[in-house]
């Protein structure tokens, strides 16, 4: 066979492989786009605790449950290493927030983690 034809066939095969395997479309990743909304929501619980004079970590459970139920379908809620709600099969993201509560005499640190 003519070497030029073989060369053309090879070039054609290479072009086909290039066209079929190349990905020329731009990709936009938005997996973490709502992180700031979650942290803004977690911040609102700080105002809630201040207004309602919540001074213990247990007192944070109702507002945190309301927040988690409102924002997530499945989640795990952990306060000070104690798991309160666990209905999440997969935990891909972790949101951590530390609340410092003050009862007039002592500070209480509540380490809140939400996994989803």
């Amino acid at each position, binding site marked *: 066979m003519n070497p030029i034809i073989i060369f053309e066939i090879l070039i*054609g095969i290479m072009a086909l492989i290039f066209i079929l395997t190349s990905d020329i479309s731009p*990709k936009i990743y938005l997996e973490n786009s709502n992180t700031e*909304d979650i942290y*803004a929501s977690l911040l609102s*619980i700080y*105002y809630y605790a201040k*207004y309602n004079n919540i001074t213990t970590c247990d007192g944070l459970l109702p507002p945190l449950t309301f927040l988690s139920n*409102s*924002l997530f379908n499945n989640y795990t809620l952990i306060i000070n290493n104690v798991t309160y709600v666990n209905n999440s099969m997969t935990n891909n993201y972790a949101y951590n927030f530390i609340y410092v509560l003050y009862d007039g005499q002592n500070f209480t640190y509540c380490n809140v983690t939400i996994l989803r």
Partner: protein
Amino acid sequence: MLAKLYEILIFLGFSIPALYLLITKVYSAYNEWKYNFDFMDRFLDLKKLVFFITESNNFTYQICNLNPTLFTIDNTTFLNIVSELGINKPVSILIDGNNYTNLLGYYLSGTTYIEIRRVCFYNGSLYLLKFRIIS
């Protein structure tokens, strides 16, 4: 002459499918890019509204600490705010919590929409704000 015809046939046999695949590839890439662009456009419009409602001095004392303004505005005022922000797509806010529910903007249920949720504090209670824009 026969060899040349043979060469031309092989060339066309490869080049026409290759050209077809290239065109379909570019077309699908363009469609994907357009979808992503439209999505980002709407998403950023919605983010603009979220920031304006939950983080600006007009409606909040601090981030997600609402002042009474949001609870006093009516639908017309809200739509004026939306148009002043430069958002020309149908949007809505559903404020829900503490036995209070109010919908501002266009009702978007049943259609495809992008939704951002925030829980914000107002007057001793937590309210769920659902921001939606048509997709």
